[in-house]
């Protein structure tokens, strides 16, 4: 690959953090998130010359990430389970802990594809069309699932607000 490999390294270094955060919001586990990102970037490595020449690297990696997450959720033998419990225990005196915990649980309650749509739309700020392309579904499906997912999370966040007294 030679010079092309430098391009891959630059891309992987610059995008890894963002991809990892997206992956974490999808699966709720930093270690699994690292695995998902590593796998998506490894797939990109294999096809780097073609994908980089086409210029749609972000879309390709995003799709690989989403496919990896959804495939992992579909596998009956999967070793990792999405959980509302953070493996990395936050500081016990953190004021945000109830919010985070509740929000993670609310995210985990969503169907994997619905959760993916919510994360891509409201975290990665993708358009309806980009989200539909990443999941390989219709824009109508994205709109309806995003709306339902948002309503579910709204209810969760409202509960936090009520508990917090604001």
């Amino acid at each position, binding site marked *: 690959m030679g010079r092309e490999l430098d391009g891959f*390294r630059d891309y992987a*270094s610059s995008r890894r953090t963002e991809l990892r*955060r997206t992956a974490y919001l999808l699966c709720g586990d930093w270690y699994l998130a*690292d695995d998902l990102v590593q796998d998506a*970037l490894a797939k990109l*490595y294999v096809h780097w010359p073609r994908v980089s020449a086409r210029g749609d690297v972000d879309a390709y990696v995003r799709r690989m990430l989403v496919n990896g997450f959804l495939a992992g959720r579909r596998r009956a033998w999967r070793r990792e389970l999405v959980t509302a419990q953070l493996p990395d225990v*936050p500081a016990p005196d953190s004021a945000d802990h109830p919010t985070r915990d509740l929000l993670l649980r609310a995210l985990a309650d969503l169907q994997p594809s619905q959760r993916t749509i919510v994360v891509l739309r*409201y*975290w990665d700020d993708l358009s309806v069309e980009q989200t539909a392309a990443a999941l390989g579904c219709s824009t109508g499906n994205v709109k309806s699932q995003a709306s339902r997912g*948002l309503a579910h999370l709204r209810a969760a966040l409202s509960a936090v607000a009520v508990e917090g007294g604001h």
Partner: protein
Amino acid sequence: MSDDVEPEAAHLRTALATLVATEPELPAGSADIERRGKRRLAQRRWGAIAGALVVAAAGVTAVSLTSGPDPVRHVAQPPTESEPGNGSQLAEGFPIGSAVNGVAAALPAGVSLGELPMDISWRAGGLLDVPVVTTAGPATLTLRVSDGTCEATVLPIETMTWAELDAIARSVCAEWISNGSPVVIIGPGEENPDAASQ
């Protein structure tokens, strides 16, 4: 996003940001990814080789199944009077140009002949490699005109269907027959008889 959803989405984004605030340290560099990528590449290559072997085995099975009383399927037979008693043979007087013409006449839509190498010639066993350009990229079509049969195979295997290869084999055999389809016996240790590459 509609106007009423916009503030809600911003609120959600802020809330999601609190989830990633506890992010542990990121693994340094991309060496781990590259190792994984190289493993994937190796797996793909071995997978392709295994796939080619499976397809080749399936092809041999298909040919043996069709080589009964009516053998003209993937394999076309030359006239019986030209069949030798034994041994492998090439079509003497079957010029490479005619063989290539046979290929060109039967190429499927979207596939064309590639640039023929200057040193193109029959190889031992009656093999001839013909470069072609397919919609998926360059490929190598290998003809085998030997043992009273014409065969066509291609690499990468996914660039042509068996039906297309069958048509090419038939066309090459028709050319061979039109050239008189005489045969020449190759002696032990002989390679690439001049007669076949004239």
